[in-house]
């Protein structure tokens, strides 16, 4: 017995009371640090792109612009996010279930494959003949190692999912937890199931494309490529959504002692993702030829919007659970006392709440509207599209991940976060910068300004024309917002790396940082008019009205166009 204790690879964390497997801890740290390093790389590329798209600055020449844009898309969207997600998976499976991590050797293989893959693709991009954008639509071609790097990266990610599942199996066999899987773990299971579908689609399209780039396959049909590529590209975004919503729920628990308003509702909503998310791939093909309207409508609506419904549900239940927890702890006055008295200066909380708001109001509202078959015609491939998805992946996913990072630094690295006042500011800088960026370039996109475009002034072009002054102004404002966001992103990287390297060690007598369960607060009669979360309901109705109005505004605009039949 004494011997097993001596060899015990676990430590008990004083801040959370969690039993942490040291191997898992090392792997979570490595994946998370790599993620942050890649965020810095991706963000730098983003800055270069933004400074070029700002017409008054127009920093890079065309070839470097398209190179930087390809790098930004791949590094920010795939590499940063997926490394972080793997870190979350390992943390959740091992630490939350007090279990050892399955197959550590395989997990290290995951790290190596993903690093090698990302580096290979990145080098291919820097070599200059692979500026094909992350979508790499055939018959445009990149160097073979551009595709090979992506394939290796995806294999690594798949192994990461396997390690996660293996850990769940061990946890179940060794009975390291009791009862049903916690919602956080359940959310991660959903994310990995979507990930397997995603990676399978990626393999189906990228492996032939790799062979084609080597000259082993003669041609790849452009329509087939886009349909399958988006089965991969779209689903991977649904992994992000599932992951960051899981983090919302988790942070609500950590920071407020909240529990889901109804486990049944939240779990069913997650289940809807598995059933219907994949249909959404067609959002990206709505203005493409050769696909029937019936097929487009069925798919773009995620089969009658059931996956949208799921997101709307999470959008209510997460803040709702915070409201209930706050009210149970005594903040039960009026509609919004619970909200006013939230810890707005705590970056864990502010990142999360900003992520919820930006994802809902900017990413969500616009996503639902632009994926209407007909409305897509006035939005497709304009700079509106990057506006929308910076609302989802930058303001939504990235910000949620930042919040969790602030929580995990003291737990995993046993260091305190440095520069506390700047850390309190950072989520606001990134969140507000991203919002300005997203909203303003959506404005420019509504006026037709194209995405992925080096020179919208069309200098020296015989057929060139001038955009409305409003569009030009929106572009400038947007890119200024982009620069603010980059400052916020850079500050995040500095704080994280700085805390790990020079942060004060967490004192031995530090008090637990997990909020006590709100149920213990003892306040049973909460809420107003029979509603436990009336404030959240009002906020949800604001979102609802925004969505409905914006929906019809777009149809009104659409109705003024040339007749198209």
């Amino acid at each position, binding site marked *: 017995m004494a011997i097993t204790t001596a060899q015990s690879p676990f430590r008990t964390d004083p801040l959370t009371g969690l039993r942490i497997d040291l191997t898992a801890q090392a792997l979570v740290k490595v994946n998370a640090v790599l993620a942050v390093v890649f965020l810095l790389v991706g963000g730098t590329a983003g800055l270069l792109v933004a400074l070029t798209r700002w017409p008054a600055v127009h920093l890079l020449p065309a070839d470097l612009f398209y190179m930087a844009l390809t790098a930004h898309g791949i590094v920010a969207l795939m590499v940063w996010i997926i490394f972080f997600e793997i870190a979350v998976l390992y943390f959740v499976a091992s630490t939350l279930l007090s279990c050892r991590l399955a197959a550590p050797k395989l997990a290290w293989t995951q790290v190596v494959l993903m690093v090698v893959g990302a580096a290979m693709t990145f080098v291919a991009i820097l070599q200059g003949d692979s500026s094909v954008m992350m979508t790499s639509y055939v018959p445009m071609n990149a160097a073979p190692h551009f595709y090979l790097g992506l394939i290796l990266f995806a294999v690594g990610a798949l192994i990461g999912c396997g390690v996660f599942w293996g850990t769940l199996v061990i946890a179940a066999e060794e009975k390291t937890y009791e009862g049903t899987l*916690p919602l956080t773990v359940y959310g991660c299971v959903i994310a990995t199931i979507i990930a397997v579908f995603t990676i399978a689609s990626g393999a189906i399209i990228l492996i032939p494309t790799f062979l084609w780039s080597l000259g082993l396959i003669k041609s790849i049909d452009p329509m087939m490529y886009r349909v399958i590529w988006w089965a991969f590209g779209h689903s991977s975004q649904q992994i992000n959504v599932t992951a960051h919503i899981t983090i919302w729920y988790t942070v609500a628990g950590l920071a407020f002692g909240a529990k889901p308003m109804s486990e049944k509702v939240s779990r069913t909503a997650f289940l809807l993702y598995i059933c219907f998310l994949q249909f959404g791939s067609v959002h990206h093909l709505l203005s493409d030829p050769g696909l029937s309207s019936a097929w487009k409508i069925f798919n773009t609506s995620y089969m009658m*919007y059931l996956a949208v419904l799921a997101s709307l549900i999470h959008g209510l239940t997460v803040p709702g659970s915070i409201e209930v927890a706050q009210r149970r702890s005594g903040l039960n006055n009026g509609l919004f006392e619970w909200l006013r008295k939230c810890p707005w200066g705590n970056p864990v909380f502010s990142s999360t709440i900003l992520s919820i708001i930006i994802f809902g109001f900017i990413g969500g509202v616009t996503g639902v509207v632009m994926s209407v078959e007909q409305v897509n015609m006035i939005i497709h491939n304009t700079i509106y599209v990057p506006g929308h998805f910076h609302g989802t992946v930058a303001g939504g996913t990235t910000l949620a991940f930042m919040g969790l990072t602030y929580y995990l630094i003291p737990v995993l690295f046993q260091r305190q976060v440095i520069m506390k006042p700047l850390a309190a500011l950072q989520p606001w800088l990134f969140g507000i910068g991203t919002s300005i960026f997203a909203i303003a370039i959506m404005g420019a996109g509504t006026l037709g300004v194209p995405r992925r475009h080096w020179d919208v002034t069309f200098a020296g072009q015989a057929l060139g*024309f001038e955009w409305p002054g409003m569009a030009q102004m929106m572009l400038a404002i947007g890119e200024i917002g982009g620069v603010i966001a980059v400052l916020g992103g850079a500050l995040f990287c500095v704080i994280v790396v700085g805390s790990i390297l020079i942060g004060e060690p967490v004192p031995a007598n530090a008090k637990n940082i997990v909020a006590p369960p709100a149920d213990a607060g003892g306040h049973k009669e909460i809420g107003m008019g029979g509603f436990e979360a009336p404030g959240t309901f009002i906020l949800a109705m604001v979102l609802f009205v925004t969505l409905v109005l914006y929906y019809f505004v777009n149809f009104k605009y659409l109705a003024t166009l040339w007749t198209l039949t």
Partner: protein
Amino acid sequence: MGYSFTAPAKNWATEPIERTEILWIVIAGSWCLFMFCWMIAWHWIGNQNMANEAYKTTPEAYAKKVEEFTAKYTVRQDKSDPSLPVVAPPPGSDVYLAASRWQWRPIVEFQKGKSYRVHISSLDWDHGFSLQPENINFTAYPGYDAVVTMTPNKTGTFGIVCNEYCGIGHHTMLGRIYVKE
């Protein structure tokens, strides 16, 4: 017990759902159903729909159609770019537009209020058809001939911008449509 990250209570599956959630699910669910129906309904009540009419073709075959079409209806060379013919097809006819690196050809001239069957395809890579300032956007593939029937409701000079990235000359890829009374 009692957190989102700990095991739920034993009776989680039978616990009653709170009012706030039920009401929201009903409201959100109804709206989802409405949006689904509206998108279908717009095919009848709206004037802007993609026909999704498309044919398999080859770049060679399509280029030939564009040439024939251009030869048949050219009325002048364009003032802004004298190397480009301006083609004025009769209302109701088939119009062939070709995207290739890095140009939309030919320039066409329409009459307001008249309908044209506009074919869109690419001769090499994917390209974008973005009509400005109307802001109507489609993707053009090589090998697929897509048809949209267009009826201009305004006169003027309309630019076609390529908004699907198509290589280093992407930002120089433009075209034009004139609409006269």
